[in-house]
């Protein structure tokens, strides 16, 4: 009956377990009275979730593009809304990234969060539930509920534990993302009217009219582009990042932004392929604008967190570029780049948080020359900065290379325009690195700084491992996505072959 879904055969509902474990982990937090105990408990439960998620990778069938580990239960029969979960090669790595990052988020908040610790941890766990659910759900209503519900804990993370301008930043974040997704809901219902189902896979590959596709695509695009965020919808991001606590920034950068690009891959391309092709040139140029704009603004920042936030705009520009070149290299590069950005930028935000805990400032000028007193810290910073600028041997190199390779096969002009972005990334990262490690002759007195302790090293070490692992041996990460990506390209390709005249329009805007 569900030909898109391979039911779970593990003997236990692994996906549901992953979704509900964090939620169940909240209950002891309501009872525990001791903040330290609450931290240990949250660390344990997030670690357990990370371990539980491992079979997903090892038992994953790499030969099929169907959704695996499937679960299907009727939920609201009246509207044919079902609780359907399943993952494929596109969502697998994102889920693993999420489960990996959450224990690190708890660790990096160990000393950072001093007030209202238990509600903070509860918010983190609720975030984990909704983030994992978003990547797993194959029912549009389930997806939308989790997608929206996530705003509440994220809003609270910024608004309660944030910096001085937290009120402004949190409201901007909430309004921006919510305004983007209200029309998504209308599009979802419109798709339901066409298909009579909310099942996401069953909406794919249907023969929608061009006009319908364009409207649906635009509604999708607004929601996802704000989440990514694509230039020019990015203005909420620096504000939210700068004010959010470290763990909030990590979750925001590493997972939340990926939901936008995941949305493009999961919904825009397979459900509205023709419209995707129609709008492809515009999105490619917006990606280029994001890459260049993010690079230049990052170059001008004095606040380290802002610098990394703007660099995210640039990096996510590469991801959308890779997605919309519609070839295997581009899309695989984009998915890998999503993971890379999650690992690297997450680590960079943790690093900035560590400096902030010590100096209570994120000013680049005040952090100048800490290398002398925090050698271990700058080693980590060095690796992650190099990774961020896509240095060969690190993870981002592979991702960016694939994206650019994909772009070159598609159209040389676009690819050529993206190259300065890579140069800019080197410029702003090296500028920061130089300043932090060595500074100048007039460095502030840093002698009171203590180097990283064991907890902080443990927080960063797994991320560094993945930076080098993906950088030196990307094979294990790439081979899970091949089949799904090829399937996705076929889904788009059906429309590509369609002589609708849309492709010609696209070719006019981008000369071959």
């Amino acid at each position, binding site marked *: 009956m569900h030909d898109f879904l391979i039911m779970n055969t593990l003997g236990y509902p692994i996906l549901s377990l992953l979704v509900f474990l964090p939620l169940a982990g909240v209950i002891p937090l309501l009872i525990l009275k001791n903040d330290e105990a609450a931290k240990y408990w949250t660390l344990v439960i997030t670690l357990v979730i990370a371990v539980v998620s491992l079979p997903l990778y090892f038992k994953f069938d790499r030969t099929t593009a169907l959704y695996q580990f499937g679960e299907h239960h009727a939920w609201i029969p009246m*509207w044919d809304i079902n609780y359907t979960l399943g993952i494929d090669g596109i969502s697998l790595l994102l889920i693993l990234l999420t489960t990996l990052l959450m224990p690190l988020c708890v660790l990096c908040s160990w000393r950072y969060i001093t007030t209202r610790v238990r509600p903070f941890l509860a918010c983190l766990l609720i975030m984990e539930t909704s983030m994992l659910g978003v990547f797993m759900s194959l029912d549009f209503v389930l997806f*939308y509920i989790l997608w*929206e519900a996530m705003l509440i804990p994220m809003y609270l993370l910024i608004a309660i534990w944030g910096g001085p301008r937290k*009120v402004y930043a949190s409201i901007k974040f909430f309004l921006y993302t919510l305004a983007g997704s209200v029309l998504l*809901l*209308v599009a979802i219902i419109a798709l339901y009217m066409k298909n009579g189902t909310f099942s996401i896979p069953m909406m794919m590959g249907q023969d929608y009219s061009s006009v319908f596709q364009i409207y649906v695509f635009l509604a999708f695009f607004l929601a996802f582009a704000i989440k990514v965020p694509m230039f020019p919808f990015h203005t909420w991001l620096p504000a939210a990042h700068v004010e959010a606590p470290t763990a909030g920034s990590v979750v925001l950068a590493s997972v939340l932004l990926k939901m936008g690009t995941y949305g493009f891959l999961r919904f825009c391309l397979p459900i509205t392929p023709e419209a995707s092709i129609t709008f492809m040139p515009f999105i490619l140029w917006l990606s280029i604008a994001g890459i260049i704009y993010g690079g230049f603004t990052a170059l001008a920042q004095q606040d380290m967190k802002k610098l990394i936030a703007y660099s995210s705009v640039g990096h996510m520009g590469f991801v959308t570029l890779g997605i919309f070149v519609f070839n295997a290299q581009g899309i695989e590069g984009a998915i890998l780049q999503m993971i890379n950005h999650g690992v690297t930028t997450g680590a960079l935000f943790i690093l900035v948080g560590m400096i902030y805990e010590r100096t209570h400032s994120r000013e680049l000028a005040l952090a100048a020359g800490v290398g002398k007193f925090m050698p271990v810290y700058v080693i980590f910073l060095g690796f992650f900065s190099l990774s961020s600028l896509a240095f060969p041997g690190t993870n981002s190199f592979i991702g960016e290379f694939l994206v650019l390779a994909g772009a070159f096969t598609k159209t040389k002009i676009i690819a050529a325009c993206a190259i300065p972005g890579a140069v800019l990334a080197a410029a702003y990262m090296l500028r920061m690195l130089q300043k932090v490690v060595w500074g100048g002759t007039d460095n502030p007195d840093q002698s009171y700084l203590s180097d990283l302790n064991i907890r902080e090293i443990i927080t960063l070490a797994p991320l560094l491992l993945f930076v080098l692992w993906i950088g030196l041996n990307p094979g294990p990460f790439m081979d899970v996505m091949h089949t799904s990506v090829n399937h996705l390209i076929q889904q788009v390709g059906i429309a590509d072959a369609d002589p609708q005249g849309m492709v010609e329009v696209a070719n006019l805007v981008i000369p071959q």
Partner: protein
Amino acid sequence: MKMALFFPELFLLLSCLVIFLLTLGRMSSSTVRNITAALSVIAFFICGGSLRLEGDLFFNAYRIDLFSQFFKLLITGGVAVLLLFSRELKGIEENVRTEYYLFLLLSALGLVMLVSSVELLSIFVALELSSYALYLLVPMRDDHGGLREQMEAGIKYILFGVVATGVMLFGMSYLFGLTGTTYLSELVPAMNQLIASPAAIVGIALVMGGFFFKLGLFPFHFWLPDVYQGASNETTAFIASVPKLGAVALLIRVATLAAPSAATLVNLLMILAVASMFYGNLIALVQKDIKRMLAFSGIAHAGYVILGIITLKDTGFATAMYYITGYMLMNLACFLVICNVSAKGENLAISDLTGLYKRAPLLAFTLAVGMFALAGIPPFVGFMGKFMLLAGALREGYLTLVILAAINTAISIYYYLSVVRISYCTDPEERPAVAVAPLTQIISIGLVLIIIIMGVMPAAVVDIATAAVRGIM
């Protein structure tokens, strides 16, 4: 056994008599409150017990079916919750507190009778019974500000109310003139023949006007902000939640006259819904008094409910019932907080909620859930209701309307969010902690749970509502 059908009403009537006798004595108001609360809880369970009864009474002017019993359960439930959390009537004058309970129960009795009435004149009588009791509740507030704003509110309420009733009666006269009957069961087939004629549409629209007034739909909304502000917090909590149930119930009954299709009427309702949503949400953005803000939000929500009515289908009506049920719960959650935070029964500005998370963590949480739910954020009941309303309206092809409603959701989030922001992101400064009684704590946890459960698992309520609606169509 016919009396068994009428048992909930009889019980409420007897309760009113008991309280009337108490008003003659000198019993302390807290004892009266406990008695009233106990009576309302019993009434709630009686309604629960008679949920599946069916039958006709009083020459078929009064119908007991799942539809009416469902609403009776909600009405008595709402009153019971309200009485349980409004500990002592802080905003009501000392010497009329006993009478206050009397009129509150009388108004509930009127509503309970209203949802069972299937004949125009009994509808009218029941509606007036509930309305006149309410008109009296508003000016019973103590005059702490010296501005006598409760009198202004009372006068506004009764004047607008009487005009709306007049409009409704005028509409009823049309219906009677066209068909020669006042029984809804005979009106439905007769109106189906006549629905194309302008007189029939005018008649139905005017009758609906009376209930638009109760619901606070544009352009019958003028009383809402002033009455909300002028009435005591407990009275507002009642006006904001329970009578709206009755209004929706009767709107559905009247709308069945127009089903299955009435393009003119639908267009009219659509315009009112859109105007209501935009008017309510835009004006709520700048409110400083939280009750005024909730009044304008109520106007907007009235617009959303109409989305279910205009489908003129059983699923749409059922969704409207689900939505108004959720709306009552969300409103009760918000007013529970307002009533408890207000120390002497004074009105609260939104800024008075400053630092609420430290002064009363549970209340702050309840308020946050209520506000997010009103804003229509999942996983709360407000989202599921809005989702089904939009889906139902889109199924009938009202795309523009659905898009406008979706845009309104985005507008409204700002003012709901600013309440959450004030209560969570500010320090209490000098403001005192709020003591919350154990019973109130239980009720607020219960409300939060119901709001979440109804949002995540709507099927049970929707199924009952659908079955109820099918019974009357």
